[in-house]
């Protein structure tokens, strides 16, 4: 019990307990003591500054839109790195998917999941959600395809090139929207001050650039995470293997 590894573990345990106690204190304090500091400024100024109903989306895509561009490029770099890393590997195994019942139920469910994902993306400035979350749901759909229909199902229908194009055009769209602000004399990613319509708060067409940026990030994240998954699975059609049974 006196090895350095166990000492490390004890230290980690003590640190975790201290952190946990600290966070628990945050839970048990009385919830409402008025909002002060930067939070008050954002809560009161969001509707006037951006026209978005969702304060989180307004902060993500307006107040700190440049940071969001940085985060998006982190994902882009990760996807490029993983795709590069797995480019040479070819796994020969291709699963044939699950049973007929699961495949049919999945086929019934997919339109609704896609609808949910699109609503998360498009209404990101009104309700919780946004481009990142909706794009992840889209990528989850492609992962479900891989699990249920077998790994070569999606790659045969949507080529990786198409996904890469969608991802890159999402990134380009984001930067182009940002450049509009620069052209009109403001800063990069300027929203309302660059002439984008504010709209009425709570309407679908409101919030200036925020819905557009949501769509751009949704394209990027959805295609990117899907590419990430499929470059790890990396099933290429193996001619020696029998074709999967028809549904």
């Amino acid at each position, binding site marked *: 019990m006196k090895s350095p*590894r166990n000492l490390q573990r004890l230290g980690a345990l003590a640190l975790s307990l201290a952190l*946990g106690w600290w966070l*628990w204190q945050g*839970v*048990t304090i009385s919830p409402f003591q008025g909002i002060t500091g930067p939070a008050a400024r954002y809560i009161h100024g969001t509707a006037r500054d951006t026209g978005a109903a*969702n304060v*989180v*989306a307004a902060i993500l895509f307006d107040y700190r839109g440049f940071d969001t561009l940085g985060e998006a490029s982190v994902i882009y770099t990760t996807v490029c790195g993983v795709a590069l890393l797995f480019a040479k590997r070819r*796994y020969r195994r291709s699963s044939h998917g699950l049973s007929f019942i699961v495949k049919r139920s999945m086929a019934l469910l997919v339109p609704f999941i896609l609808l949910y994902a699109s609503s*998360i993306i498009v209404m990101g400035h009104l309700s*919780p*959600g*946004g481009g*990142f*979350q909706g794009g*992840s*749901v889209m*990528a*989850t759909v492609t*992962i479900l395809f891989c*699990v249920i229909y077998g790994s070569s199902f999606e790659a045969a229908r949507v080529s990786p090139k198409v996904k890469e194009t969608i991802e890159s055009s999402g990134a380009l769209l984001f930067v182009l929207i940002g450049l509009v602000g620069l052209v009109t004399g403001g800063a990069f990613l300027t929203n309302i001050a660059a002439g984008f319509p504010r709209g009425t708060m709570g309407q679908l067409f409101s919030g200036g650039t925020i819905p557009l940026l949501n769509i751009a990030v949704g394209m990027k994240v959805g295609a990117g*995470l899907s590419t*990430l*998954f499929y470059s*790890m*699975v990396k099933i290429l059609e193996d001619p020696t293997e029998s074709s999967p049974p028809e549904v």
Partner: protein
Amino acid sequence: MSITFFAFLAAFLIVTALTASEARDMLSAVIALSVFGILMAIIFVILQAPDVALTQAIINSGLVTSLFLVAYSQTRKRGDDPDRENDR
């Protein structure tokens, strides 16, 4: 939301986190991590952060789990990692 329910969630969160880090079987660890993600999402909803909860639910329980499972299925299976051998 009663504080006891929150305490129960937090305690269960700790159990799943310990399982994920200490389980010898990789598959159990991955599933425990997925349960951890779901509980974390519930806690984020209780703490009134629905945006983060949505992200947490999708990323941790959907994407990360499936990525880990793919990595698990395409690597050698020993049941546990080599540096645990020294502890026995």
